[in-house]
């Protein structure tokens, strides 16, 4: 994020505080930052318990999406038949509004953790596949010709050349996927749950408990930001060669 965006954050907080303090809007519609902070500290145990549930669903959904997405991408790149068969299905799964089919998953899978994870997987899966396919196809053709002259077996070419070469692309997909996975888990909680931040927000909404609603929203956003940063750190640690190049080409995302 750029310098100017960083300096706008306290400004937004001030605007929020002024609106609440001057009672421009009724307190039950927009709570003051103080009231929200109050809920965050006094109900910390309650919030933490539900935050953990949402985080758990998000991480599990994200992990499944990464494994399945990477495998699907590899199979698609190595077999054009599979690619032709799988691509329309993937695209369909992507364009179907996940929020609209979420209630169906609750009917099928019950009120447990399963439908939340399924929705998180469905939402996070697409960017993983697309970025991995792009990465695997972006490999230098001369590099592949070279490995042919070295007598490389297909798995050697994959392990030593294609897979590592695809990682920078994969990571840009992972950054999108991890934030989407949070949305997926919360959508799952909205349509039928008795725990998780989605449930907390629905409850608070029903009780017109706006400070709690705002607290839930804040924590939820924080999960997304933290996971995004974790993926970025993982990228820097795993692909130091890529990060050092990127720093000079000024496409930093955070």
């Amino acid at each position, binding site marked *: 994020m750029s310098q100017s965006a960083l300096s706008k954050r306290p400004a937004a907080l001030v605007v929020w505080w002024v609106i609440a303090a001057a009672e421009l809007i009724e307190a039950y519609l927009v709570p003051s930052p103080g009231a929200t902070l109050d809920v965050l500290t006094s109900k910390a145990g309650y919030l933490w318990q539900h935050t953990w549930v949402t985080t758990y669903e998000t991480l599990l959904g994200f992990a499944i999406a990464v494994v399945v997405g990477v495998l699907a991408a590899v199979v698609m790149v190595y077999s054009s038949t599979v690619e032709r068969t799988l691509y329309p299905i993937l695209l369909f799964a992507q364009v179907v509004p996940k929020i609209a089919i979420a209630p169906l998953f609750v009917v099928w899978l019950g009120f447990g953790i399963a439908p939340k994870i399924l929705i998180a997987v469905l939402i996070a899966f697409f960017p993983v596949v697309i970025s991995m396919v792009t990465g695997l196809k972006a490999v230098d053709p001369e590099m592949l010709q*070279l490995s042919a*002259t070295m*007598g490389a077996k297909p798995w050697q070419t994959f392990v*030593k050349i294609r897979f590592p070469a695809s990682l920078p692309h994969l990571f840009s997909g992972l950054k999108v996927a991890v934030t989407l996975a949070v949305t997926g888990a919360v959508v799952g909680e909205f349509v039928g749950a008795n725990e998780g931040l989605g449930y907390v927000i629905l409850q608070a909404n029903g009780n017109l408990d706006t400070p709690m609603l705002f607290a839930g929203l804040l924590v939820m956003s924080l999960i997304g930001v933290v996971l995004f940063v974790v993926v970025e750190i993982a990228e820097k640690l795993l692909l130091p060669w*890529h990060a*050092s190049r990127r720093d000079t080409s000024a496409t930093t995302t955070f």
Partner: protein
Amino acid sequence: MTMPKQQTTPRVPAVAGAGPAAGVRLTDVAVRFRSKKRDVTALSDVSLDVAPGEFVAIVGPSGCGKSTLLKLVAGLLTASSGDVLLGGERVTGPRHDIGYVFQRAALLEWRSALRNILLQAEIRRMEPAVARARADELIRMTGLGGFEDAYPHELSGGMQQRVALCRALLHEPPVLLMDEPFGALDALTREQMNTELNRIWRTTGTTVLLVTHSISEAVYLADRVVVMSPRPGTVTEIIEVGLPAERDYSETLGRPEFRAAAAHIRDLLGAVSAHD
């Protein structure tokens, strides 16, 4: 900087694709590419006989099929007609008894210079100690010493191309194929690389096929220069350079044999494009 033409390491045992210099023979080779719109004949009636240990340079205008010719020898492309032999064997698929250098170094950016060179050894399953010793020798020979742990993005174009050359020579290939290896380098680096390549060729004794746009590079380095005509590529003439194997750069460029060969090739290429 004089080095006798000799083997400096004991022959690497049991490495696929290693061995003494091999000959290359192309007989009436033609290559046609078929696309939806039209058929393109990249090469037609190309015959060329390269002796083991010989250095042959190939020059010609862009699109005359010079690179295609190298890919045929490597087995990365199949001829539409005619025969390609490498070391007396017909080339039917990718050959492993060659080293290949492209215009771009094509290095793996997540590997250090040394580990890029050793990729060749890993894939061929060479004995690690033997491969390492050979890599160290090549690194010394190409002046890469001290840059073993540098990553490709930390190296200059010339250094990157040296790494690619070391990688191509690691398994002591009987034939080295080079496709405009110094085309992207500045003139000064290019001269340096030419001098080094001449020395490396004399040291390793390998057969070299070099595709280049530079007439002086071709004449300075090669025993014979193949001049090709534009599409469909054919061999216009093969010129014997007639210079000694060991060549000092500036001394060679002043020699009458060099000037005569270079002028002749320039005429041939000029005549070809004028005719075109």
